[in-house]
């Protein structure tokens, strides 16, 4: 305890946060994976996983153990270093972006002035990881997936940012905390419904969720960019995808749905996190719902939709907002 | 059955031997015997008459492999079985440019029987692996080959009787339509 006592509080806070963040990322992956499979089961009129643990709750743990125990196969003609690196490139940034998310008024690792920009920048890094993974696999299907991922990511980044900038115009700040505080009267989703919808659609594309799951469209590309990855490295991509989903929804909640605000609970400074999580998981539920309902769009349709509809509408929305704010 | 009558006349003008078959017993309406040189004219005629190609195959009988063409029509119930004989080393003209579907059927017949379809754009094995391209699995063993008349339908004493003489006439022009009645 003495060593702990001598550490500067800032460092202690960082170490603690890192542990919590990593634990949370894994727990979220497990929970979301379970939720996805259970909900998919419900949508498909079947019970979903039932065997491992009560109501199949330990299924994901069993799967995780299995994946860790699997051999990690590296294709002979791939670039070994990059091939090993790719899953971490996908996984690490999403963990990092956690530090600016305000779970409640007191539960936030660090409130950066540039919080929103930071989180967007870090999340976009996922695209690089996908490209690396697809490229070094030395597999044409993986390359297809990677190229699709980049084209899709670049395209959808634009309406996504445009819709987020409208909120920035309303709050005059990039700080995630300020975003939440500025919604004490009315949630931004009611002032900017168009921006919210555009953001959510772009978010689906950004996280490669159906109906925009083209980089890993298994009926066309077997498994897309992670075709060649096995065992624990596959599970890192899997975790990264779920964590990414979580962040896309967190941003939506922070910017549009009032963050941690909600009916008061005891110790609201901390327990606001409950409201925050609830809202995030409602959005995640919608994402899962969409995935198990719709067929996949075609690649040209995906890009057309972005460039011909989402981007112009988002631009128009931004212009109108700017005018209204200025007047 | 006016359309069928006309078709029979045209087929006889090719000239080919046409017999009416008993659909109840044989499952096709017309049986056509062709010389291998007439195969393309035959196919062109039926293509014009809006027939489709059900399959191309072969039967290995003594002295010659018989190529089978079965065609049917979308608009009228008329199924035609055509038989063209080729000699063991001989070839038969390809009809892959008339009926595109024949392409694969001819490739299959080629790899199974070794029949050469001259003019075929790509006569490579279709179902068999490349290394057993010369296997010709459906050719009969030396002692199992039967002469062609051992597999012909036996005259049952009724309708077939009248058609039997037509067989022996070979490629004469069929100017006697009453024979098919």
């Amino acid at each position, binding site marked *: 305890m003495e060593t702990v006592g001598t550490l500067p509080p800032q460092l202690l806070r960082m170490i603690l946060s890192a542990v919590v963040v990593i634990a949370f990322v894994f727990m979220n992956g497990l929970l979301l994976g379970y939720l996805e499979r259970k909900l998919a089961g419900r949508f*498909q009129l079947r019970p979903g996983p039932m065997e491992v643990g009560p109501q199949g709750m330990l299924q994901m743990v069993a799967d995780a153990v299995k994946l860790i125990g699997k051999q990690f196969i590296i294709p002979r003609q791939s670039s070994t270093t990059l091939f090993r690196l790719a899953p971490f490139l996908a996984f690490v940034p999403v963990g990092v972006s956690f530090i600016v998310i305000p779970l409640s008024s007191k539960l936030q690792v660090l409130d950066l002035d540039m919080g929103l920009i930071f989180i967007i920048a870090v999340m976009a890094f996922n695209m690089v990881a996908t490209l690396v993974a697809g490229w070094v696999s030395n597999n044409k299907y993986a390359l297809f997936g990677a190229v699709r991922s980049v084209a899709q990511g670049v395209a959808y980044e634009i309406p996504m940012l445009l819709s987020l900038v409208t909120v920035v115009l309303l709050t005059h700040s990039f700080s995630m905390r300020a975003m939440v505080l500025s919604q004490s009267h009315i949630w931004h989703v009611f002032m900017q419904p168009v921006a919210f919808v555009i953001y959510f659609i772009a978010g689906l594309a950004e996280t490669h969720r159906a109906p925009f799951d083209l980089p890993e469209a298994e009926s066309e590309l*077997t498994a897309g960019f992670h075709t060649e990855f096995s065992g624990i490295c596959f599970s890192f991509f899997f975790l990264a995808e779920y964590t990414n989903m979580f962040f896309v929804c967190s941003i939506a909640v922070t910017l549009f749905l009032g963050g941690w605000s909600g009916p008061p609970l005891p110790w609201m400074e901390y327990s606001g996190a409950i409201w925050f999580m609830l809202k995030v998981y409602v959005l995640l539920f919608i994402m899962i719902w969409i995935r198990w309902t719709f*067929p996949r769009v075609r690649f040209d349709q995906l890009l057309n939709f972005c460039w011909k509809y989402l981007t112009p509408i988002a631009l128009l929305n931004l212009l109108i907002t700017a005018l209204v704010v200025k007047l | 059955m006016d359309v069928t009558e006309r078709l029979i006349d045209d087929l006889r003008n090719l000239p080919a031997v046409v017999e009416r078959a008993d659909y*109840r*017993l044989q499952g096709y309406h017309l049986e056509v015997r062709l010389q291998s040189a007439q195969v393309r004219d035959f196919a062109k005629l039926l293509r014009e008459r809006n027939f489709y190609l059900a399959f191309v195959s072969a039967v290995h009988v003594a002295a010659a492999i018989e190529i089978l063409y079965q065609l049917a029509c979308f608009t009228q119930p008329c199924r035609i*079985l055509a038989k063209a004989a080729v000699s063991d080393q001989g070839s038969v003209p390809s009809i892959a440019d008339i009926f595109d579907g024949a392409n694969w059927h001819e490739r299959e017949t080629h790899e199974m029987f070794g029949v050469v379809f001259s003019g075929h*754009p790509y006569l490579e094995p279709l179902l068999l692996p490349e290394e057993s391209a010369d296997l010709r699995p459906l050719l009969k063993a030396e002692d199992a080959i039967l002469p062609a008349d051992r597999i012909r339908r036996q005259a049952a004493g009724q309708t077939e009787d009248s058609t039997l003489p037509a067989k022996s006439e070979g490629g004469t022009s069929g100017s006697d339509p009453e024979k098919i009645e």
Partner: protein
Amino acid sequence: MTTNNGNEKRQGFYLNMGPQHPSTHGVLRVLLEMDGEYVLEAEPVLGYGHRIQEKMGESRPWKGFMPNTSRLDYVGALICTHGYIGLIERMTGIEAPLRAEYIRVITSELNRISSHLLWLGAFLLDLGAFTPIMYTFDDREQILDILEDVTGSRLTYCYFRVGGVNRDIDATFIAKTRAFIERLRSRFRIYHDLVTTNIIFIKRVQDIVHLTPDMAMRYGITGPLLRSTGVGYDIRKSEPYSVYADFDFEVPVGTSGDCLEVYLVRLEEMEQSLRIIEQALDRLPDGPHLAKTPKKLPLPQGDASFSVEAARGEFTYYLVSDGSEVPYRLKIRSPCFSNLSILPELCRDMLLSDLVMVLGTLDLVIPEIDR
């Protein structure tokens, strides 16, 4: 690339799709020449499931080949067996009792529905929709249960016999089948709500390729693919076998021959099959289900052909006999073989995603193609 129609070669890279690929439905391999996402040439490579069934048919008494027939088109095995049994009956002149013919029609149509249901689920899976396959499998499961009760197997049925069927159907079978008809009719609404009106689905399948009657004639395309072009050709109508002539049913046709029409035709066909089953159950005659046949039954010398309308199109058996029990030559014409041969022409210059969609539309059963 060795194209089989001698087109001039264009610059592209090769992509090997299959034989292990989720959307080739078995062991089909398609060699693709690609330019980015666009398919320049598609060349199906067959034979990975080749078992030389025709030789097997020629090297044993005809009875011994009966189980093989259900291993050709294993998704619609009963219809496939129907053709072979029909052929033997045609050659030997044995007639099945009327009751047996009715049972054959009922079970064949149930099998056709189960085949279409499987196609529906798999097709939507190719389009990236996961959920419908669970619904269709749920329905298909009912059929498999019903057929299992009477035939003893769930997929590769060997139920038809020369002169009738192996086992008679009972009241439970009839009650279960009637209940299934009710159930499936109510399920069509779900499919229409979930799939037919889905904008993404429509955008994915409409106007991608157009089959024409002329293309169908050139390639010998039959079945729902042909009917989607507006040609109402159905062997059950044009060369009615068994007792199909007794029933009142329509042959659904499309107009434009695109994949949406194929989908609609197949859905409508399921409803028509239900109508046939219903009529057959209503009019099911009493009597024996199996005629007495001699133990040894040589096939008379000569040849015969028998065509049935399988779930995917015209299935024809052509048999040449030398008078013994062992067929001298057995030719099996499977619909998918011809239906697939159009792929190179159909899929020129289209997106990879569309190629997957078109492959799904063709409803391929690979063992039937490779035989």
